[in-house]
């Protein structure tokens, strides 16, 4: 049964700049739809049109066309229905669950909407039981919402929406702020909800975890629908794949690997499209078994020389000596860290939420004072110099760019730092232009940064740090809320800065990024360093990483499953492709 129709929908925030352009879509009950597209393509705006925020709350802008909801067998235009009616049939879960919380305790939060809709006590209790079971949060009912982990908060937000038992559930990047463990928790919950019969429309960048569950993938670009098809068709058709690459969307790694092997004729053109790591390795092994491929063992690449010999003449830019940090509530976040980071390194710091990554960064920047131990940056104790002085040499881009933006225009935002350094006007202008160009945000120079999309705001925040030309650049979760194309551009930029001699430190949950760009990976778990070495070796320690519930990059996972074919551990798809090309010879 059709539940939602979008007919000729167009929307512009400013006259002449259509964010949505001639959208025509139809949705059925019980579908699980994955909505993807590059940053700024209109995904969130489309969700706002479906849930009635446009035009009922966001009154500015020009809206044309119709969003029709099927309520009790009759079609209604969302623009003419009051919000309290829409919210009984359409519920939304946003990226940041905290902005949706009204109450202090989980059970009160779940009951809030139902109380406002006038349900009886018995009905409220029944619906809460349904929602908590579906989301697996029975054990959290009496807890304070703000004491929960990121994954738990997001599940509470989903349960709160689900308690209304909506016909349509919209989720706008619900896992972007979560670590892999939290994301997995949330996505499993969403899959269960779709099976219950609601239409689920999920906006996500994590395609590997979501594509395998989706019935349909809708790709948007510049406000238009580019593709609307089942996942295997979208990722399996070479022409559609090419369109995805052109707009900066990377298909799930398993699908991309097989697609590349098909293009190189290592696998036949009709080889099936896998959506999981196991499927990809099984397809390769199947062709091997059928006798179409013959394996040849190839040697593993050498370990980088910096890890082969201790060079005592190298200058550490960051030196940490037996660092312990305890928060005022007694939480011990760092437990005896000894670490040296050298000039010119590209270091990735990984670990689950609560492992101490952010606390470590804050100690390096002098924003937190060690409870015990010392931190030195360029040989100076960070507790003896001011944060302002440190900021001349160390730049930090936060996970949430909104915490860094406060100027009325992008230009002023980028000029703020150099101006505070007391630089001459010409130098400020040169640096701002350089940063605008590097981040590809020249066209936004005179715009209010708060009116840009999240991914664009992130680029402004990075530009603001780049204009300071720091010697050490620290990026906290640089891929949050970014599409693949933007992530790649950003990391390529960091790699370029690294080649110029700058030290780069990246904290990320996106292990593929870490594997591709970093020369060193530091794994944190419960405040301690568990592993610290070249990425290839670190990610090969799958047993240790599994013990601390940390995943490994998808490509590395596939290569480990193909180990018995003599394939070495691979970090990048190009490596694995090359190994398979060399080692699998067509008969």
């Amino acid at each position, binding site marked *: 049964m059709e539940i939602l129709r979008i007919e000729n929908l167009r929307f512009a925030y400013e006259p002449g700049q259509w964010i949505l352009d001639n959208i025509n879509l139809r949705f059925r009950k019980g579908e699980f739809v994955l909505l993807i597209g590059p940053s700024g393509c209109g995904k969130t705006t489309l969700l706002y049109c479906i849930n009635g925020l446009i035009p009922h709350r966001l009154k500015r802008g020009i809206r044309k066309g119709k969003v029709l909801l099927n309520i009790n067998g009759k079609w209604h235009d969302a623009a003419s229905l009051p919000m309290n009616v829409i919210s009984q049939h359409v519920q939304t879960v946003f990226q940041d669950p905290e902005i949706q919380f009204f109450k202090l305790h989980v059970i009160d939060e779940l009951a809030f909407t139902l109380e406002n809709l006038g349900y009886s006590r018995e009905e409220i209790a029944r619906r809460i039981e349904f929602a908590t079971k579906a989301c697996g949060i029975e054990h959290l009912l009496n807890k304070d919402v703000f004491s929960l982990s990121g994954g738990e908060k997001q599940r509470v937000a989903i349960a709160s929406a689900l308690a209304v038992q909506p016909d349509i559930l919209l989720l706008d990047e619900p896992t972007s702020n979560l670590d892999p463990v939290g994301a997995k928790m949330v996505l499993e919950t969403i899959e269960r909800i779709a099976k219950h019969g609601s239409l689920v429309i999920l906006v996500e960048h994590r395609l590997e975890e979501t594509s395998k569950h989706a019935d349909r993938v809708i790709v948007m670009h510049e406000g238009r629908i580019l593709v609307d098809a089942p996942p295997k068709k979208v990722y399996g058709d070479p022409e559609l794949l090419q369109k995805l690459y052109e707009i900066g969307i990377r298909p799930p790694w398993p699908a991309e690997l097989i697609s590349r092997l098909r293009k190189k004729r290592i696998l036949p053109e009709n080889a099936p499209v896998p959506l999981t790591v196991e499927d990809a390795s099984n397809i390769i092994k199947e062709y091997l078994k059928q006798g179409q491929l013959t394996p040849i063992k190839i040697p593993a690449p050498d370990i980088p020389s910096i890890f082969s010999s201790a060079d*005592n003449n190298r200058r550490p830019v960051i030196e940490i000596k037996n660092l312990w940090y305890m928060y005022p509530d007694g939480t011990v976040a760092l437990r005896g*860290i*000894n670490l040296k*980071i050298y000039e010119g390194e590209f270091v990735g710091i990984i670990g689950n939420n609560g492992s101490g990554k952010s606390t470590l960064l804050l100690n390096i920047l002098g924003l937190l004072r060690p409870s015990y131990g010392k931190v030195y940056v360029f040989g100076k104790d960070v507790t003896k110099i001011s944060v302002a002085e440190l900021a001349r040499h160390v730049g930090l881009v936060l996970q949430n760019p909104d915490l860094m933006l406060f100027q009325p225009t992008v230009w002023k935002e980028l000029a703020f730092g150099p101006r505070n350094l007391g630089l001459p006007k010409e130098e400020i202008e040169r640096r701002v232009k350089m940063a605008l160009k590097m981040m590809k945000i020249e066209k936004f120079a005179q715009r209010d940064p708060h009116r840009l999309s999240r991914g664009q705001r992130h680029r402004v925040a990075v530009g603001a740090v780049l204009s300071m030309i720091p010697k050490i650049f620290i990026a906290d979760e640089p891929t949050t809320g970014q599409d693949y194309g933007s992530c790649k551009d950003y990391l390529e930029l960091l790699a370029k800065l690294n080649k110029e001699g700058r030290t780069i430190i990246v904290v990320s949950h996106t292990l593929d990024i870490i594997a591709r760009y970093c020369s060193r990976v*530091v794994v944190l778990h419960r405040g301690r360093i*568990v592993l610290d*070495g070249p990425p290839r070796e670190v990610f090969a320690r799958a047993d240790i990483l599994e013990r601390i519930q940390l995943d490994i990059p998808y490509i590395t996972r596939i290569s480990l499953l193909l180990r018995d074919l003599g394939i070495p551990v691979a970090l990048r798809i190009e490596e694995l492709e090359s190994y398979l090309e060399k080692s699998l010879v067509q008969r």
Partner: protein
Amino acid sequence: MRLGVYGLALTFVLLVLIGVLAWVADEQRALPYEIRVPHIPNDITIYDGSPISVRHIVLLLLVGCKEALKFQNYLVILISWTVSWFLLGGMARKIRDIIFGIIFQYAVMILYLSIVHVRITLYIPESIIPAFCAFFASTGMFLLLKKLRKYDFFEVLEKKLNIRVEPGYKYEIPVPFTCPNCNAVQYSNAQYCWKCGTDLTKFYNERAR
């Protein structure tokens, strides 16, 4: 900035304390001690032996005489205090920074009062000296205990928070070092060797011994 706010609050507390102690003292006796602030061309009398009252305490806080209670002077004194802490507050990292901040803000205030040609003379009642000794002794003890407490950090973890700390994590492990099993270079005290996967905790504990 938080330490700066504490400094501002501490200034008020200190001066109220001095005022209260002066009130407790026998204010009717003559005051034999007098300190002249050098190199200041003008001076004011803060305490001239009159009975201590709220008015005198306020004057003491403002380091001024009656002229200080005029609105424009009061406003400028407040501005000078606020400006001083805005200048210093962000840099205050330790107690000595706060002490310097308090001295600095009074220097700014005295400078202002000198410019408006107010006489400054600092008097200290005789009976306040034991109070000052007690104050400095207790402050010194507090700072010493704070310094000593640093070395009991692990005691706090073990006895109060029930967190067992292995000896290898109580001391600095000089990096880089090589894995005792495979000689791979380690640039941090990671729990496992990146190359051979050996658990290095035993190595750290032995090194700590």
